[in-house]
């Protein structure tokens, strides 16, 4: 099976803290994969390195067989855990921005999603609530026909009803060739959409398996397994 993301001996150190420790990873194309782990396990660091926002201390990262750079950024659609759209931009400005820079941006899909999520088109970002801004960012990210989606806590800040819509959107709007890597704490919510999962603890990948395999061999849900593995 062809891989979309490969990391080899990937390390990231922040002064005295080793955030990622020798991470070897191969993710296939066309899968929805959960990146799961407790706070401070290195999930965001891993996503930021793949997105090109952090420089690894050592090791290699290949996205669709290319090192991280201008080329891979065209393939990746990244949703950070924070709101990054400038306050003064209107919803229309944001759409214009994404259309300008991403050849794979689907404007019709974006407008349809915005309408379904009741995001008002003429409003500036500073006039929107935090939750609506997060929805806006998710719409922008999921409206691209990217090869790799990196979603850092995509459902953390929204209500349960919207959460369901977002998960349906994620499943319904990506093509079979694309891979989605979702980092989240809300495992029970995302479990139903995941093909595979990664457990990350103290910067080390401790488990990489399919969700079906966990259910079949261990007779447990992913949420139950997570609670067992990461019990405090």
């Amino acid at each position, binding site marked *: 099976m062809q891989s979309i993301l490969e990391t080899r001996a990937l390390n990231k150190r922040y002064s005295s803290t080793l955030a990622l420790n020798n991470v070897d990873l191969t993710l296939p194309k066309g899968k929805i994969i959960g990146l799961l782990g407790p706070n401070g396990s290195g999930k965001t660091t891993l996503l*930021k390195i793949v*997105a*090109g*926002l*952090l*420089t690894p201390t050592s090791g290699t990262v290949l996205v669709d067989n290319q090192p991280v750079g*201008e*080329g891979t*950024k*065209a393939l*990746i659609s*990244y949703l*950070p855990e*924070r*709101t*990054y*759209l*400038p306050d*003064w931009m209107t919803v229309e*400005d944001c759409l214009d*921005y994404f259309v*300008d*820079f*991403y050849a794979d941006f689907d404007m019709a899909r974006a407008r349809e999603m915005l309408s379904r999520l009741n995001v008002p088109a003429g409003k500036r970002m500073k006039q929107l609530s935090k939750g609506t801004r997060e929805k806006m960012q998710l719409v922008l990210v999921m409206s691209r026909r990217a090869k790799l989606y990196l979603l850092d806590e995509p459902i953390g800040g929204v209500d349960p009803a919207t959460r369901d819509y977002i998960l349906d959107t994620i499943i319904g709007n990506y093509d079979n060739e694309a891979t989605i890597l979702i980092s989240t704490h809300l495992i029970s919510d995302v479990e139903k959409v995941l093909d595979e999962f990664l457990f990350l603890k103290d910067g080390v990948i401790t488990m990489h398996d399919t969700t079906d395999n966990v259910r079949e061999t261990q007779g447990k849900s992913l949420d139950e397994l997570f609670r067992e593995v990461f019990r405090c």
Partner: protein
Amino acid sequence: MLKKLMKHDFRALSRTLFPLQIGILGGGLVATLLTALTIRLGEHTATAGGSALLRQLIMGVSATASVLIGIAIMASALVTLLLICYHFYRSFLGDEGYLTFTLPVSTSKLIWSKLLTGMFWTAINAVVIMVTLLIFSVFGTTSNSIANTEVLQAFRMFFTDILPQASKYVNVPLVAVEFVVITILALASQMLEIYFAIVVGGQVAKKHRILAAIGMYLLINMGVGIISSTFMSLIALGEGFANLSFNTAQDFSVVMTSVFGWFGVLFAGLSVLFFFLIRSIFKKNLNLQ
């Protein structure tokens, strides 16, 4: 892609800088009107034999208006520069960096876009300031007529007397082109020096990064001062300026043209140095918090 980046950077900067320039022009017009009125009132009071105290008061208002316009103009240049720098900081080191650095655009283009839009707005600000000062000097400094004929006469003299006279000794078009090129290079090197200080400040400090950037700018500026004076001293030695005689205006103009040229080389060198240092940090050591 550079065109698109510039379009969005221009849009972001115009939001604050366009109203600011309109404000400078508007403020300048108001101050011009106020000064012209107070001068006329002062003259009228004088000819009507009014009290000296009232005349002094009116002239005081006029002088205060002139000082205020000067301060406002100086402040506008600083505010323009600060807004340009803050835009750079937010786009690269703030939360917006998550948007900027995930664009499928080369690092060089990202820097070029910030540099060119920053230089464009600095130039616009300079033009607005000059126009404001021109309006003030022509319409705000006389009581005899609407426009100050002495100022207009001085402008006319510059083109009818001074320039033809100067062209006997120097190649005026060449000097003019040289001056424009050096101004552009000096502006680019200064802007890139500030951008570099912001980037290094962001690298060395996790908190108070703006303060760190100011500290870095002071340090870098000292380094640039040392490099510049060493470079120009070496050039002066190499060209043998010390042994040259300045007996004629031609001698002087030849030396000045040469010095200007070397300043151009210095500014170009500094611009290239800062550009590649910023690019190198963004490419090899980016760690967005």
